[in-house]
């Protein structure tokens, strides 16, 4: 990418500490450090491995970390004061698309398979099969099935709920849905404490390769190219260090482009797998980055080519429509109980302006608008503009419902299951 040394911005602060959670998608930060992209912009970055999302949030809030690998929803939740700590956050860099999957125990997989042979091909079928099983269990007076995800304001939570609700399952009433830290998921599944989970990589791969569970559906199948992690900082920090922020975003865009290349992924798997970062078998990371999952012992691995998207399809652009969808889910599941101006919050947190500045300095093209309709495109597509050389990815939801960021309220009322706790009429009034 084009960068002349003399034109590089000079960061206000060059020694930085950034936090990460040991998951495959932290690889963008790791690549930026190990491949010298941070250095190129005059940044000396230490990466701090954190034990919980709560730690990431609190440490960024009090300035113990300059910024972090963050759940997309966490930037919004923390800005709104949901989830224990209130502080305005911003993101100008979306770290990746997809990366999650729902894995179930072998026992539950067999039961689902009895209901429908095509459960792996279509999440609508697996969700319907689950609905049947839940009804049978309930009629027989059996205990509820247990599912887990990693954090209330995570896309893992919204994806597993979306999947269940598409078949009319109420995730708050029909199953027990709890939070389990990612590194404990596989053991919990093995010990029979849970029947399934929605988690990021490498934990689906780990469960599958240990023969503990079966990958039922990828997050991609629930919502094609859904946003996953972002690089988050506090609004104060961004205001105080605009050039450092710009340098960081430039370095991260370059790192993301580098790790999106299949050859680089293969060689980088060892670095990522080391104890300093994820601390797991390199082969598991390598297979996951290539999108291969050994779901059935004696068959070819199940291939999910877009399991990890780090740069292509404008993956790093912080779409305000993604933020708006996340807010819609906070309403849908009763997390957000206050009537707010949705777009105002989306635009306060998601800041494409800094991304655009970074991209243009790198000589890259980018979308000129902040919102797009989500759920209309079934395959990769191009904007109707000859000057733009990029393609965007498919963005369909499993139930083919379209999300129009201008009409969140009618979107909410269009779903079968929702546990919304605000008056939709009130919400409509503020968001017309």
């Amino acid at each position, binding site marked *: 990418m084009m960068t002349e040394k003399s034109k590089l911005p000079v960061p206000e602060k060059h020694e930085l500490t950034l936090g990460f959670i040991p998951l495959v998608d932290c690889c963008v930060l790791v690549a930026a450090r190990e491949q010298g992209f941070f250095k190129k912009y005059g940044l000396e970055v230490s990466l701090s491995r954190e034990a919980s999302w709560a730690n990431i949030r609190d440490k960024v809030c009090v300035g113990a970390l300059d910024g972090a690998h963050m759940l997309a929803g966490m930037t919004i939740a923390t800005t709104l004061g949901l989830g224990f700590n209130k502080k305005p956050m911003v993101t100008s860099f979306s770290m990746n698309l997809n990366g999650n999957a729902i894995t179930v125990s072998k026992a539950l997989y067999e039961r689902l398979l009895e209901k429908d042979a095509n459960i792996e091909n279509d999440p609508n079928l697996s969700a319907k099969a689950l609905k049947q099983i839940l009804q049978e269990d309930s009629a027989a007076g059996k205990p509820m099935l247990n599912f887990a995800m990693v*954090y209330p304001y995570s896309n893992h939570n919204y994806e597993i709920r979306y999947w269940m609700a598409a078949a009319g399952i109420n995730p708050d009433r029909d199953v027990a849905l709890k939070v389990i830290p990612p590194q404990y998921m596989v053991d919990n599944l093995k010990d029979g404490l849970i029947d399934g989970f929605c988690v990021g990589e490498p934990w689906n791969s780990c469960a599958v390769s240990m023969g503990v569970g079966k990958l039922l559906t990828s997050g991609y199948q629930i919502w094609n190219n859904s946003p996953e992690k972002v690089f988050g900082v506090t609004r104060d920090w961004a205001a105080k260090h605009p050039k450092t922020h710009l340098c960081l975003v430039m370095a991260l865009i370059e790192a993301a482009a580098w790790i999106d290349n299949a050859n680089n992924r293969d060689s980088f798997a060892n670095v990522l797998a080391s104890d300093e970062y994820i601390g797991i078998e390199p082969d598991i990371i390598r297979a996951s980055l290539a999108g291969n999952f050994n779901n059935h012992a004696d068959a070819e691995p199940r291939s999910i080519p877009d399991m990890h998207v780090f740069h292509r399809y404008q993956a790093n652009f912080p779409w305000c429509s993604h933020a708006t969808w996340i807010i819609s889910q906070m309403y849908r599941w009763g997390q957000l109980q206050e009537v707010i101006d949705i777009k105002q919050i989306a635009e306060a947190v998601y800041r494409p302006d800094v991304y655009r500045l970074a991209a243009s300095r790198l000589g890259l093209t980018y979308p000129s608008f902040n919102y797009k309709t989500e759920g209309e495109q079934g395959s990769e597509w191009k904007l109707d503009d000859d000057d733009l050389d990029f393609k965007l990815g498919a963005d369909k939801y499993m139930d083919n419902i379209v999300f129009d960021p201008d009409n969140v309220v009618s979107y909410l009322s269009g779903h079968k299951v929702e546990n919304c706790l605000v008056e939709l009429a009130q919400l409509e009034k503020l968001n017309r």
Partner: protein
Amino acid sequence: MARDNKQLNIMIIDELPERSMAMEKLLTNLGHRIVATASSGHDLPQLVSRYQPDIIIIDMDSPDRDTIEHMHSISAERPRPIVMFTNDDDSDTIQKAVKAGVTAYIVDGMHPQRVMPILETAMARFKEYQSIREELEKTKNTLEERKLIERAKGIVMKQQNYDEETAHKTMQKIAMSRNMKLVDLARSIIAAAELLRTGK
């Protein structure tokens, strides 16, 4: 259950049993009751509903914070929702807690004044352990660094045919002129020597 008005039920989640035992003693001396101590990975929601603690002290190295935080959002069915302890919106408490590496969750509606001494005690205890650990880390580092410098010096002596003192002074001079630490220069010398050896 009749109990002293000032007595609080405390649950401790800590990876280090030694530290957790020390804390248990201190907090018991303050007149509180430790209802449960656990390391990570247990079924926390179950423990919490069984023991009904007023306050949960948790090691920030434990991934279980995320599990506890989720209990808040499913609190509709629970009589005692859990919130993170902050002293009325001031981020000062969180800052201090982050520094010490320990934090606390309390039942909703509990007055911060009642909890503050408990958190202070926990923070002090954690800080003490932190400084012990840092001290150990530091000794380990200097030892390792000294070993590296000795190794590099040996390489320079052999390659340049220097005596020990000249080798040391030369390395110091180069390190100073390049604005790098002696140990970093030593690492480069060792790396270069290894590269040459494997290249043969």
